[in-house]
């Protein structure tokens, strides 16, 4: 899993929205959200060493 991936798919969604392709933009948003949920599950169940 790459942290860059949700930013990239969000970038695609924005680009397609600007270009006027609504269904593609919403599809890209859904992909972003699925990746986001994957990362979120990882980071709310994994021990994070950030209380340093």
């Amino acid at each position: 899993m790459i942290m860059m991936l949700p930013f990239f798919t969000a970038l695609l969604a924005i680009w397609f929205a600007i270009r006027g392709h609504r269904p593609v933009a919403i599809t890209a948003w859904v992909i972003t959200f699925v990746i986001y949920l994957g990362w979120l599950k990882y980071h709310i169940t994994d021990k994070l060493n950030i209380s340093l």
Partner: protein
Amino acid sequence: MSLSQALKISDSKSWSYIFNTVALLAICGSLAEAFYYQIFMNELPCPLCQLQRVALTMAGIGMMLNMRFGPSAVHYALILASAMGGATASVRQILLHIEPGDAGYGSELFGLHFYTWSFISFLVMMVFCSVMLCIDRNNMTAAFKTATKGLTVLVMYLFLTLTAANTVTSVMVCKFGSCPDNPTEYLWKF
């Protein structure tokens, strides 16, 4: 010149258009402010911080779709889902630092850490959707392309630029794997 004239809009959806533009501008401001601290204060984003940036961006996409294609319940659903996802990530981070004596992660702004502000902003977004769904109740139509001109085009391209910059810096901070829990330096430097 009135605000609606500056935004070059004159139809009945003008208030929805203005509110969504202002909301998107606020998201751009939040992302830009995070960049300011990252670049000038050398505060690299932790994984949960990155997730909150993604959630802000996803919410911004819903607002942009409202500006670009007219208000739609689907677009507000995207904003609500993003706000709920973002609130979950920020609450997780707040709870990580809730113990007395914990200094928290990163700088404070007006006495609150950024992840606390982030949680507040996601709550505000939910209220925003509730209010806008009332305001737009008679404007919900099948999505159509609206002519976006003037300041709104600038706001959309600013949003695009900030997301592109986030894409690049996320690679710089995390490379192509999971991000370090407490990043102190860029893993990939140009």
